[in-house]
């Protein structure tokens, strides 16, 4: 089977490749039989949610169909008093959060373009934002899953209770699996009470040394921020716009709790930060800033975008090596994770050299760099998923166990992209 000519814009999968058809199943059962049928026709399966991040991963490797989740948006069960919810994966993050908000609850995951992005997409890509430090990763909130395999069977794992060790943990295995093991159709989450109040404290730093000392001290601060973000100057202008101080480094600390507790922390951190130039945004005013911090990964000029992880103690050294003329950097300093993107005008060969240096620096501490976004022709040379890791062979066996036909999202993840 060949790639079809571009039939219509909405048939685009990614990287200039188009789908033979778009299937929009309305139920898990419908989804499962669609997969079996398409695979029998010799087609590959490319799941799509809101389509905000279809560029993630290598180019689609062989002809296939898009299978969309946007007709599967039901709230299956929301026993609010149990603080859990079961929903279909095609629901947008915004709709999900709105449902939870009506009960004074929320899912503590930050999502860019949340009006488009689906829960299934967030889980398939393991997407998080600044609050990760305080609340954990997507895997920490999922307690149950149902997914359709390429052979047309529906598989569930976990359950609907907050604590459960029966059977292998499919909810975690599917989280971050980029649609390569199956199409996620239902997810059960544990949710949290929405915090009464929220504040962001923005502090300017003129030197990396001073910033380093502050980050070190935060490790034992009397306050308990839920977010510790560092922005270099161009990223600060991008994220904070006119609120951005004109310093080379900006630290943004997020607090979310009861009003009195937030007040105490804002006061206290002001004192802990000593000389630093500090500004506070609070309550409703903080909302747009939280969003801007979340959206850094999806907005901006970057032709190449990276997701970096390293031990937090190596962060300052790394930041010292990144030229703000070339890169915008948002470091979630508490967890040692960074979102980076090139500034306008950075040439691809320079970017490639930077990436190489970054990877070496991160590998020293067991860290890594993923290319979140780049032009199609650069995906191979830049090695989207980085160099092979010791557990990739085992990962390939897991993939073969659930998708022996190799039908799910071929070419996109580490196992089929080549290295």
């Amino acid at each position, binding site marked *: 089977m060949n790639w079809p000519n571009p039939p219509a814009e909405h048939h685009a999968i990614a990287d200039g490749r188009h789908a033979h058809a778009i299937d929009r199943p309305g139920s898990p059962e419908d989804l499962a039989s669609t997969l079996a049928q398409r695979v029998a026709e010799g087609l590959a399966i490319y799941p799509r949610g809101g389509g905000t991040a279809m560029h993630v991963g290598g180019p689609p490797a062989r002809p296939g169909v898009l299978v969309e989740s946007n007709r599967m948006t039901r709230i299956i069960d929301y026993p609010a008093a149990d603080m859990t919810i079961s929903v279909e994966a095609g629901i947008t993050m915004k709709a999900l959060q709105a449902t939870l908000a009506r009960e004074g609850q929320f899912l503590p995951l930050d999502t860019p373009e949340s009006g488009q992005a689906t829960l299934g997409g967030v889980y398939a890509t393991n997407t998080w934002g600044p609050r990760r430090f305080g609340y954990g990763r997507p895997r920490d909130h999922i307690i149950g899953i149902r997914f359709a395999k390429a052979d047309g069977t529906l598989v569930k794992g976990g359950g609907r209770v907050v604590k459960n060790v029966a059977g292998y943990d499919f909810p975690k295995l599917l989280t971050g699996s980029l649609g390569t093991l199956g199409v996620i159709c239902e997810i059960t989450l544990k949710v949290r009470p929405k915090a009464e109040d929220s504040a962001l404290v923005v502090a300017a730093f003129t030197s990396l040394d001073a910033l380093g000392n502050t980050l070190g001290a935060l490790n034992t601060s009397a306050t308990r921020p839920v977010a510790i973000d560092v922005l270099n100057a161009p990223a600060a202008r991008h994220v904070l716009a006119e609120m951005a101080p004109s310093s080379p480094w900006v630290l943004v600390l997020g607090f979310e709790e009861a009003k009195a507790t937030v007040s105490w922390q804002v006061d206290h951190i002001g004192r802990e930060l000593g000389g630093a130039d500090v500004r506070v945004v609070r309550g409703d005013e903080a909302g747009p800033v939280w969003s801007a911090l979340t959206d850094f990964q999806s907005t901006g000029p970057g032709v190449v975008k990276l997701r970096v*992880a390293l031990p937090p103690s190596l962060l300052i050294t790394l930041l010292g090596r990144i030229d703000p003329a070339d890169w915008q950097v948002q470091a979630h300093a508490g967890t040692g994770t960074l979102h980076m993107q090139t500034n306008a005008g950075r040439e691809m060969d320079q970017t490639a050299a930077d990436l190489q240096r970054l990877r070496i620096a991160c590998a020293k501490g067991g860290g890594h760099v993923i290319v979140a976004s780049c032009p199609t022709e650069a995906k191979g040379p830049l090695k989207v998923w980085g160099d092979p890791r010791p557990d990739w062979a085992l990962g390939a066996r897991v993939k073969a166990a659930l998708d022996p036909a190799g039908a799910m999202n071929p070419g996109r993840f580490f196992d089929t992209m080549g290295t």
Partner: protein
Amino acid sequence: MSVASPASSAARLLADLAAVVGPEGLIHHHDELIVYECDGYVIEKSVPDVVVFPTTTEQVARVVRLCNQHDVPFVPRGAGTSLAGGTLAVGGGVMICLTRMDKIVEINLPDRTAVVEPGLVNVRLTRALAGTGFHYAPDPSSQGACTIGGNVATNSGGPHTLKYGVTVNHVLGVELVLPDGSIVEVGGKVEDPPGYDLIGLVVGNEGTFGIVTKITVGLTRDPESGRTLLGVFDSVDAATQTVSDIIANGIVPAALEMLDTLMIQAVEQAFRFGFPTDAGAVLIIEVDGLEAGMDEQAEAIRKLVLKNGGTVPKAIPWRTRKEPDYVAIWKSRKSAFGAIGRLSPSYCTQDGVVPRTKLPHILREITRIGAKYQIRIGNVFHAGDGNIHPILLFDERDEEEVARVILASHEILEECVNCGGSVTGEHGIGVEKISFMPKLFGPDDLSAMVAIRSAFNPEGRCSPEKMIPGGGGCLERRSPGRHASA
């Protein structure tokens, strides 16, 4: 097929193993092996042919390779506190006991990680971290005995995992000796390594993926302060209703544990903490966080206790977990199972989970089922998670009573499933609850699980007949080792 006599093949296996771990590193006389015939689940027994005590990863790998060469099954074991028969040496074979690999390899406070060997007893990491401002969050009640390797295999919880998350939320990487004897690093020191979340899969595998020989865990900051309240109630109903109310009110306690009359009396006799022995139930309710706001949280909880007709005779404010009252109340709770010895020669603990709003219902059902089968049942459990631990008291020598215990256990677990819950919140399926898997999962779910197990453990040689019913490569085959010892 070789025609060597079983005795000589067993002797060769022993000699080969001794060459790896040394004569001090194994036991094989029947009277010594009897200790290893079961773990905390005493209803089923099977004696391994030999128990080895490796001290390095390399030794573990060589032992595993020998098991392959000699075609015998093997099973990992930590401290043997499993309550589900996870360490049962089904079909005999080699038991690989990790208790001599018990070092703390590294503590890295700036990055909030620690690297430990699998045989390290959980509480030793807690002790090593005392005073640093950080702790390792998973704190199973058995933490004074159980190993972190065992915790990883079972994805253990504990009283404080309600707020802080269970073992899987705190493990970053492991070194794993696969069932073919190869050694692989899974995960790492940094979160989200590219590739699948194999750590998510490995934690909770119940020993069916191989042997964990090193673990990198994340550390959690100590709370600045807390309040630990004792709520006293006339009835179990009032206590469980309070639990539901606390959760429904959006309070996230650090711990929320319940004891019923039978357990209060047992614990009080043993530890004399000062629990009211005439109460129908008590709750231990803990909140922690910043001192600013702590009194408000404690007050909100107190009101819910009072609303349900309870009292709060004790409220312990604390800054560190060393306050004498704090230590005493948690010692009483965590040693509760130990106190059962005073009540009954044997006991069997179940581990069901229900949605938290269903706690009043399931506790009533437990009472009904206890009466129906004439089995005394005590309850001491992680109420905030909906994770019940009915403790069924019996005498192992009374076969007829054992049969009733099993029937009663099953009926309780069935009811958990009916409520939309699970049959195990933290102890695992092991051999004990294997017959429940088809009640929780359909054939397609189970065959996907078998496929995953086969990706790690294609021959089913590692920990056969655990967790997933049937369908494992060589599960049915005879064990030469077994024959040798017969």
